[in-house]
């Protein structure tokens, strides 16, 4: 079955630094990918998405890179702030819009 792996379960960065969270996926047929942020006690919150016909997409302070050749995604957060502390999930889309989540990466921002 499909799996999603994240390269690091935890990531600690200094406030103001850039953060990079990586994600590997297994299903080469996936054509839609979403990054979510989940804070304690809340549901996952949409950050940014990318379709397989793109290799880069930018949002506000965030950039997602997609490398379909090696089935790898990354989320870059510029000038990381304490409010960015959360668990981050990448989720490849599946049939009918179903998303497959990995374990997540916990980002801690040190002031």
């Amino acid at each position: 079955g499909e799996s999603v792996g994240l390269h690091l379960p935890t990531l600690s960065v200094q406030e103001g630094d850039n953060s990079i969270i990586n994600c590997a996926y297994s299903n080469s047929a996936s054509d839609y990918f979403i990054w979510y942020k989940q804070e304690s006690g809340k549901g996952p919150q949409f950050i940014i998405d990318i379709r397989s016909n793109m290799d880069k997409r930018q949002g506000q302070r965030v950039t997602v890179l997609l490398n379909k050749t090696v089935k790898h995604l990354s989320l870059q957060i510029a000038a990381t702030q304490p409010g960015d502390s959360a668990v981050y999930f990448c989720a490849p889309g599946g049939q009918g819009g179903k998303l497959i989540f990995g374990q997540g990466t916990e980002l801690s921002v040190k002031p």
Partner: protein
Amino acid sequence: GAGVSQSPRYKVAKRGQDVALRCDPISGHVSLFWYQQALGQGPEFLTYFQNEAQLDKSGLPSDRFFAERPEGSVSTLKIQRTQQEDSAVYLCASSLTGDNSPLHFGNGTRLTVT
């Protein structure tokens, strides 16, 4: 506008009791999804609906789990004869169209079975 709303926010049930968890999706969203999230893990897919039709229930862990969306809007996830291993956060999400459309999640119902 209003997001996905789930109730109750917390539910404590004695082992063997039945529970019903409610989800109010974003108005106009065609697809509705249920996920289960254990502590420290990512959400795991349970089932999804397109309007009132349940198109995929492959993630439901046993026949004690049942979901419905009779009018294509509000959905209820029912768990019969709850067991301790059912303790988790149950997340509901809706999306406008389904395929290649972001899911918008509610804040979940935390179920604790004692």
